């Protein structure tokens, strides 16, 4: 399977211009046989919106229609799977969400899954929970590659999130992100980007999953979204990586057999499945106590 990860540079707050830019990407990719196209977090608006999020958030069906129209406008007749990060208006509750959409083809567009970001960073330069509500569920769903899960930006920084996704069956993790670059004492790479790569590589190799990361790029009020669009194999090897600054497309080939081989060679996920009940029922873990208190 071929996936294309789009390092996207939106115009702040300009939905129409960004949909036009999305169509230009579709026109480039439609003839290539790419089956999955991944855009970053907040791709259609830019990331830092503050109170303007209430003006720009879309409901999922409206976004699905708009993206589907852009794909069909290329003249492509085949279906394609598209992931796009967006600010979601869910009946007056606002989320930082990512949609997995099956667009084009003979049938109507179908929303396969919407993941609502669970870990909303609200520290330092980040202020998400001031404006947004946390998602409550991490689910695996059936993607073009098989079982997959989406994690948005900080979701992926918590090791338990890829772990839960893998335990739920995900063989592919899709990570739309908008990461303000920081740390310039590194060796040719921003420290924040190097940290991202180490986190993603660890998730891929521990659980034997492909990890596809699509990063926003471009400066927003002095904060530079740091690109870093990249892909990791189920062994944790870096397959491809873009730089921090310029829009581009990273094309990746995914082979389901690689997941099987990685898991067969180092069966950490299987080991975890066996031991997890003992860990989870440990009375010293606060979450266990809370569940008991609720029941």
């Amino acid at each position: 399977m071929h996936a294309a990860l789009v390092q996207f540079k939106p115009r702040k707050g300009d939905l129409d211009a960004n949909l036009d830019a999305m169509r230009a990407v579709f026109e480039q990719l439609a003839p290539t046989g790419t089956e999955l196209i991944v855009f970053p977090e907040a791709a259609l608006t830019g990331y830092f919106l503050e109170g303007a999020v209430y003006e720009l958030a879309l409901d999922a069906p409206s976004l699905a229609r708009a993206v589907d129209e852009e794909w069909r406008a290329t003249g492509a007749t085949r279906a394609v799977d598209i992931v796009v990060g967006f600010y979601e208006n869910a009946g007056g509750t606002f989320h930082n969400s990512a949609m997995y959409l099956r667009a084009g083809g003979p049938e109507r567009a179908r929303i396969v899954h919407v993941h609502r970001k669970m870990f909303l960073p609200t520290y330092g330069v980040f202020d998400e929970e001031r404006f947004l509500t946390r998602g409550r569920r991490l689910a695996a769903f059936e993607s073009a590659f098989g079982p997959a899960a989406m994690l948005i930006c900080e979701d992926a920084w918590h090791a338990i999130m890829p772990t839960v996704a893998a335990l739920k069956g995900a063989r592919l993790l899709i990570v739309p992100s908008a990461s303000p670059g920081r740390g310039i004492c590194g060796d040719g790479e921003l420290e924040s980007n190097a940290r991202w790569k180490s986190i993603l590589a660890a998730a891929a190799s521990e659980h034997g999953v492909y990890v596809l990361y699509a990063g926003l790029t471009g400066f927003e009020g002095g904060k530079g979204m740091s690109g870093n669009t990249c892909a990791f194999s189920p062994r944790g090897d870096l397959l491809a990586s873009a730089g921090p600054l310029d829009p581009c497309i990273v094309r990746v080939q995914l082979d389901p057999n690689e997941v099987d081989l990685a898991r067969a060679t180092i069966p950490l996920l299987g080991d975890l499945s066996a031991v997890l009940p003992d860990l989870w029922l440990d009375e010293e873990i606060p979450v266990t106590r809370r569940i008991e208190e609720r029941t």
Partner: protein
Amino acid sequence: MNAQTSLPVIETPLDEPSLAIDPELTARWLEAFLRDEMVERRGIGRAILGLSGGIDSALVAYLCARALGPQNVYAIRMPYKTSSPSSLSDAQRVVDALGINCETIEISDAVDGYLAHAPDADARRKGNVMARMRMLVLFDQSARRNALPVGTGNKTERLMGYFTWHADDTPPVNPIGDLFKTQVWALARHLGVPNEVVDKPPSADLEANQTDEGDLGITYAKADRILNLILFGYKDPAIVARGFSESEVGLVRRRVDATHWKRHLPTTALVSGTAINEFYLRPVDF
């Protein structure tokens, strides 16, 4: 193992967040910042800056020339009659090296015209008048040339409050405001800023024989490390443990704590549920 032999011990030094920079990575990041914030967001491809002959404005001139092309950079030299002649010649070295545009506009008449009405003004007030006059000239020249004023204040002076409020800090974009002075030196050397500019003692050049380090009472090399530790949340004893005297740490911390107001917009009385930047929240680039 022989019980008499002692094992080799691997000692770790006391950890400290690094101030080292990867200069090429930093330069490319700041050039992208200038292009995005000026050309793409504001639609302005020309930069204008006050070129003092010091390292901060020299570095910004180099970054602007790389980001926008030297033909799109306008350097304004704004000497007062007591300014050091070497400031003018050092600024000229930068202009010649880069091939940027340059104009010299004396501020002596304008400054003295006001100061004639303020005979009691001391050196500090006169320095502030000069700084604010330069801001006035820079913004007027910006309108004349349809060029965006670019700021040249570094992180050290911003944290120490070592600048004139609503003067040096007024340009709408600043590529070096998150770089400590020692990082400015490292980046300037990497980009080839003339040695005469990089190596001379930094000075606001508002008075004869003035130096920044004399004014501040501490070297930049020490101040930057102390500031960095303060920003990372280290308490005074932990900073002292890293090789500084209590008086050095106290001096820097007092300057930071006394000048938070200089790093904010004016304090506005809140009387509604729609107060700007309190309830009505929009990003600067929306």
